[in-house]
């Protein structure tokens, strides 16, 4: 960090994101115009607002560009293996139910190699906030097709344009049982911040998809300009609709984008379901797991 603090009117001030970062690791590795850092700003603001004890908040990432988020946030952070952030987080959460556990990873990590874990964590209603930064591509490996790449988008492994049908992630999460489902873009910083705050305070599997530019690979290969051009596209073509059926949230190449909070419901979490089941079957001999007496 800069040796000299920022001073205004004789008062020292600081970038509000800084207390949440491992400042000795900056600058980060993300490319100019990449939106991942923007989502981190929103997440830091959400951490400020949600009122959680940050010593009891852990972040788990998989592999890839977004997978590096864990390394920059000054929380207990785990940079795990490719696709396995969710099962690691599951172990962490179940191992210590007092923790708030956030999974923060990319579209390739969470929905291709980690797709099976994603659907099962949502099905179980594992108490995790899962943030998926969706830039439609594998950035760290050089711009290959992912399960969210829109039809027609060029990728190194789809040189003639992608012909595979992509996932509609909010629909997938909804169908699998997620209790909170939202989609925003990095243009929607305020709404995203609010969604992250809501997600942090939500009990159960909460899922937030964030569309974010990959200027170096996705935008360049598809002649979409810089990162900021892509954010301008998000601005122009996004429509907020909280009431839409999640099955209608498919994304087309550079088409209209529906954003909003689509699902917000209550459902028994995995841990509550386990405790309730064991209590009803085993009775008094069962001491509910992960319930701190008096403290929670």
């Amino acid at each position, binding site marked *: 960090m*800069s040796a*000299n603090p*920022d*001073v*205004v*009117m*004789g*008062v020292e*001030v600081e*970038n*509000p*994101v*800084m207390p949440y*970062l491992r400042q000795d690791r*900056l*600058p*980060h590795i*993300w*490319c*100019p*115009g*990449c*939106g*991942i*850092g*923007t989502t*981190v*700003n*929103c997440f830091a*603001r959400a951490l400020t607002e949600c009122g959680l004890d940050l010593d009891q908040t852990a972040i788990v990432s998989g592999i890839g560009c977004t997978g590096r988020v864990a390394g920059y946030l000054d929380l207990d952070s785990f940079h795990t293996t490719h696709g396995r952030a969710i099962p690691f987080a599951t172990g962490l959460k179940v191992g210590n139910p007092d923790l708030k556990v956030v999974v923060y990873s990319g579209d390739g990590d969470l929905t291709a190699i980690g797709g099976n874990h994603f659907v099962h964590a949502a099905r179980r209603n594992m108490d995790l906030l899962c943030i998926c930064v969706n830039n439609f591509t594998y950035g760290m490996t050089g711009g290959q097709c992912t399960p969210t790449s829109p039809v027609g988008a060029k990728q190194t492994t789809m040189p003639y344009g992608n012909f595979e049908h992509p996932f509609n992630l909010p629909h997938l999460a909804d169908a699998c049982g997620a209790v909170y489902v939202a989609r925003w873009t*990095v*243009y929607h*910083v*305020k709404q995203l*911040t609010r969604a992250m705050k809501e997600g942090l305070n939500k009990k159960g599997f909460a899922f937030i998809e964030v569309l974010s530019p990959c*200027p170096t690979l996705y935008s360049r290969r598809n002649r979409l300009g*810089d*990162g*900021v051009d892509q*954010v*301008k596209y998000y601005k122009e073509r996004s429509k907020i609709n909280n009431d839409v059926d999640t099955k209608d949230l498919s994304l087309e190449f550079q088409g209209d984008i529906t954003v909003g909070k689509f699902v917000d419901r209550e459902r028994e979490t995995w841990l509550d379901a386990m405790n309730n089941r064991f209590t009803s079957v085993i009775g008094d001999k069962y001491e509910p797991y992960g319930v701190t007496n008096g403290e929670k």
Partner: protein
Amino acid sequence: MTDNAPKKKEKKAKGTVFVRKEICKGCSYCIDFCPPRCLDFSPDFNAKGYHYPILSPPEGCTGCGLCGLYCPDFAIYGVKFKDVEKLKQDAADAA
């Protein structure tokens, strides 16, 4: 950084920004999404060859801080003078 320090005689500015130009990557998010459109590229390069943002015109800044929320590189943030006054007051009260 001192380039951007508030100048009290410009009364119209309600806030200001601080830029850590050495970690800026010149993406222009802050410039393009600044609500009062009061940021622009500096004609100068930073060490990595990027043009970083400067207030232009400074008196337009409201200190809304949206630049800081957008900046993917944690290189800029805004402060409202009103908030700084309050900080000052709180510090004085505490003392």
